[in-house]
């Protein structure tokens, strides 16, 4: 059959390229393999060129982008591994199955490099749950999908972030990241280097679920998205648990596995072509040996199935081959089959009963031609003009309570309570206690983990907004007392053939890359997801870059949480507040309270680096007991959260905070970057240390009482009991969801 009749995702130009390079018309199986591997999802053809802007090296980087997981040295022979994935399209269609298999996929990536998954992080985006029943349905089932899978497999889900915005109403975003722990000497790569080695497919059987899932993920969602359910894979966390336990046992026993690769997007097509291409070899595979769930599957279906819970192992050949591997698989009841061997000719040769059904250069399959999309800065300003005088300014107290009960800011306890965040005996700082989760490592050190994004800022100013996502994640990791050491990113936007969408994507990427360079933070992996767009309405999501940052802390005494610790402690605001109200939570809840000129927050990596160092210094000197990043909802919300968390009130004069705002509402709720709120016994000592570091700061008040009392250079402007704030903050999401 001709390519044009196969319903491929390839463009006419790509089809011509394949024909020219091959010198013949590929058959259906070959077209399907190329289609899967050349999909945006697998090939990064619209982003690969630009991703080179990211700094990817550093003293701790063992393995950067291009592998199943980034690998970072955390000392004493231990490494931490990182990977991020999204399962946006599948979750929009089948939230439970889509989210579950997203977790399944990212766990496999961490396992692929022979590390043990120890923490899951979920960054989720939905429509407005206070307005949309569909979005509540998505949230409920995505969370249940993550919980059922992660809890069953026994990997703690320790951190995350959720944002609600109308642009995600039909395209929810489900980003899942996993952190693993391993030993540097045990790492295994997804490479087949030695001809003669044996290819063994283990785990779940191959079925018709998820066929062409990578192609599905690389186009816009259709109106009748429900009809694409067979493109969503079926999760089996129990098989994943057996895979994990058996492979980690083999690794611990130093079993001879030469290479390992998970089967994710693109299934066997991707796994086989990538191990061959990375290893500089070829493969010769008999598809009849693949264990099938349905026995009438064709070679094309087998090659493009994305059935879950499968891994490809490269084992040595000859007598005794697999003797330290196969018995362990059998003990755990993990099925396996030898499907072929590694060859010296760099080709992907697939057979059906011995007869060749596909014969392609591995490099042709893996090296999709790059696409350089045209891009254009939108001509119209994205910020709609507002009057110079606010039309309607809410009282500070009303604004604070409204923000605390906004689902974007309210406590996410309803969500994280459904996740087992304790399994593994590593979670030292737990969800809800601080700005990042902290896990202990076997060498006595600690890692801090947090993922952040801000789609409103990233759409208003794609460059600064994306840089701000990295800035916020770094601040969150610093707030618990850790030094940021590595990042994985996820860039998500609409259809790249739209020049304005592609412009925003480029700006997102540049913003993140520049910030990482200035901050000295290596990017060790990442993911790109395009086509998050509803083809019925033509609406794209707001560009949604995500930064997941891991930090390292050396001792227990250097860890901090956000709760106010004792009455009488001085409260210090670090960093300058500017009237940067555009895209703020206040502007979303009270649009009439915003004036012109209203900017979205500016980011200064050099200034942030100085501030973050100053905060780590305060912690190191033991001067501060509570540290909280200041982001969504600004100073007002940061103070409220510290009070709620510590069940202690505070008295604060906002006018004392370093600020260029003219109105107290702006000082209270601006979302300027580079700020922290800290508290400690000795305000003067804290101030003196910050002065030495050259960071703007001010002692603004004291911890104490049972209310948060705010003034602005005069009498009290708001006094809110901590219990009232807690009721709003903790009650908002359960009220909507239960």
């Amino acid at each position: 059959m001709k390519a044009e009749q196969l319903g491929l995702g390839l463009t006419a130009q790509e089809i011509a390229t394949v024909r020219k390079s091959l010198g013949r018309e590929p058959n259906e199986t070959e077209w399907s393999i190329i289609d899967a591997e050349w999909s945006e999802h697998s090939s990064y053809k619209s982003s690969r060129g630009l991703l080179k802007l990211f700094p990817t090296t550093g003293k701790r980087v063992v393995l950067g982008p291009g592998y199943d997981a980034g690998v970072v040295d955390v000392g004493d022979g231990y490494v931490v591994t990182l990977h991020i994935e999204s399962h946006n399209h599948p979750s929009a269609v089948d939230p439970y199955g889509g989210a579950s298999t997203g977790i399944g996929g990212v766990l496999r990536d961490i396992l692929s490099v022979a590390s043990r998954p120890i923490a899951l992080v979920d960054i989720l985006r939905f429509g407005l749950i206070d307005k949309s029943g569909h979005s509540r349905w998505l949230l409920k089932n995505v969370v249940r999908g993550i919980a059922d899978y992660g809890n069953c497999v026994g990997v703690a889900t320790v951190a995350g972030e959720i944002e609600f915005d109308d642009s995600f109403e039909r395209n929810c975003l489900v980003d899942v990241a996993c952190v693993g722990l391993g030993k540097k000497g045990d790492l295994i790569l997804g490479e087949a280097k030695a001809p003669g080695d044996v290819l063994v497919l283990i785990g779940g059987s191959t079925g018709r679920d998820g066929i062409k899932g990578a192609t599905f993920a690389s186009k816009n969602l259709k109106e009748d998205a429900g009809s694409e359910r067979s493109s969503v894979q079926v999760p089996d966390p129990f098989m994943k648990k057996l895979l994990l336990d058996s492979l980690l046992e083999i690794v611990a026993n130093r079993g001879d596995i030469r290479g390992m690769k998970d089967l994710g997007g693109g299934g066997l097509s991707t796994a086989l072509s990538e191990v061959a291409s990375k290893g500089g070899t070829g493969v010769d595979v008999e598809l009849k040996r693949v264990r099938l769930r349905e026995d009438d599957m064709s070679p094309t279906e087998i090659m493009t199935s994305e059935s879950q819970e499968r891994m490809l192992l490269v084992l040595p050949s000859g007598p005794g081959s697999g003797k330290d591997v196969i018995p362990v698989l059998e003990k755990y009841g993990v099925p396996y089959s030898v499907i072929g061997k590694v060859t010296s000719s760099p080709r992907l040769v697939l057979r059906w009963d011995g007869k060749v059904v596909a014969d392609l250069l591995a490099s042709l399959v893996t090296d999709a031609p790059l696409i350089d999309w045209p891009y254009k800065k939108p001509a119209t300003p994205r910020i709609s003009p507002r009057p110079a005088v606010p039309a309607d300014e809410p009282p500070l107290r009303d604004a604070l309570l409204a923000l605390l009960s906004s689902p974007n800011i309210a406590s996410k306890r309803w969500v994280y309570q459904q996740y087992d965040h304790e399994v593994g005996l590593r979670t030292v700082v737990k969800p809800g206690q601080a700005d990042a989760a902290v896990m202990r490592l076997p060498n006595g050190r600690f890692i801090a983990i947090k993922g952040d994004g801000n789609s409103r800022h990233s759409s208003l100013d794609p460059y600064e907004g994306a840089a701000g996502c990295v800035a916020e994640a770094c601040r969150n990791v610093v707030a618990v007392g850790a030094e940021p050491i590595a990042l994985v990113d996820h860039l998500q936007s609409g259809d790249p053939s739209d020049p304005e969408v592609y412009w925003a994507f480029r700006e997102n990427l540049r913003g993140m890359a520049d910030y990482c360079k200035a901050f000295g933070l290596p990017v060790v992996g990442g993911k790109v997801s395009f086509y998050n767009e509803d083809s019925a309405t033509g609406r794209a999501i707001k560009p949604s870059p995500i930064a997941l940052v891991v930090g390292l802390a050396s001792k227990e005494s250097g860890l901090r949480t956000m709760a106010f610790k004792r009455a009488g402690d001085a409260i210090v605001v670090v960093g300058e507040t500017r009237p940067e109200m555009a895209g703020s939570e206040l502007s979303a809840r009270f649009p009439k309270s915003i004036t012109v000129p209203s900017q979205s927050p500016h980011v200064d990596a050099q200034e942030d680096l100085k501030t973050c160092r100053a905060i780590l210094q305060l912690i190191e000197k033991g001067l501060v007991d509570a540290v909280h990043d200041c982001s969504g909802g600004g100073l007002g919300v940061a103070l409220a959260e510290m009070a709620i968390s510590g069940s202690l009130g505070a008295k604060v004069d906002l006018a004392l905070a370093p600020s260029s705002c003219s109105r107290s509402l702006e000082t209270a709720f601006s979302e300027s970057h580079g700020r922290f709120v800290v508290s400690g016994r000795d305000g003067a000592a804290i101030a003196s240390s910050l002065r030495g570091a050259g960071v703007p700061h001010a002692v603004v008040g004291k911890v104490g009482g049972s209310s948060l009392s705010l003034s602005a250079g005069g009498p009290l402007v708001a006094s809110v009991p901590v219990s009232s704030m807690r009721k709003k903050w903790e009650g908002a999401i359960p009220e909507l969801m239960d």
Partner: protein
Amino acid sequence: MRVAVIRFPGSNCDLDMMAALRTIKGIEPVLVWHEDGGLGGSDYGAVILPGGFSFADRLRAGAIAANSPAMARVKRLAERGVPVLGVCNGFQILVESGLLPGALLRNSTLRFVCEWTHVRVENTRTPFTSGLREGQVLSMPIAHGEGRFFLQHAELARLEKEGLVAFRYCDASGRPTAGSNPTGTLHNIAGVCNAEGNVVGLMPHPERAAEALLSILGRPDGSLVLSSLMVRSEGRWGA
């Protein structure tokens, strides 16, 4: 004392339990794969069934493990008076295998819940509570979807009368209030024991609260449950 920790396919708190037991002086934990023999002899001073999702909780939580050959051996040991502890999924297995009364139903919220709870010690005549005081309040986390203890009214009354409730959810001051009941479990029951006292099941995870570093209150309360095994006691278990 050698303590067997049984690992079923799908157990996920087995290694955590091993690590917690290793912190207790005098206890030598041994990880036993469910298909391995070795439980038949009397070389284990106690058996622990850890939490997780044994056999993926297919059919019902704990149902398949309860009918495994390993559990047949555990039953024989229990009958001889060997201390047996089931935590979370282990508790579900003990209930399913008939070693403990009652059933563990889906939480009243119909959701999995992971949070730190307070539990009050109700019965100190078991090998896992002998080192504790009656009325003592412990801080330990739960993490389960099916932990609502249920028993018919008359049987529940008998269970209470015979003092077979081992742990009860309570508030920080030890009162078993409705607000401190995370799952809708009857009478705030978090753990029970058999009539002989040697078999104990509880939903909270002592192994997750065995170190001050991991405990939200900075107290290693869970280790007191596990180290009770080393406390000489007047209990009725064993000989």
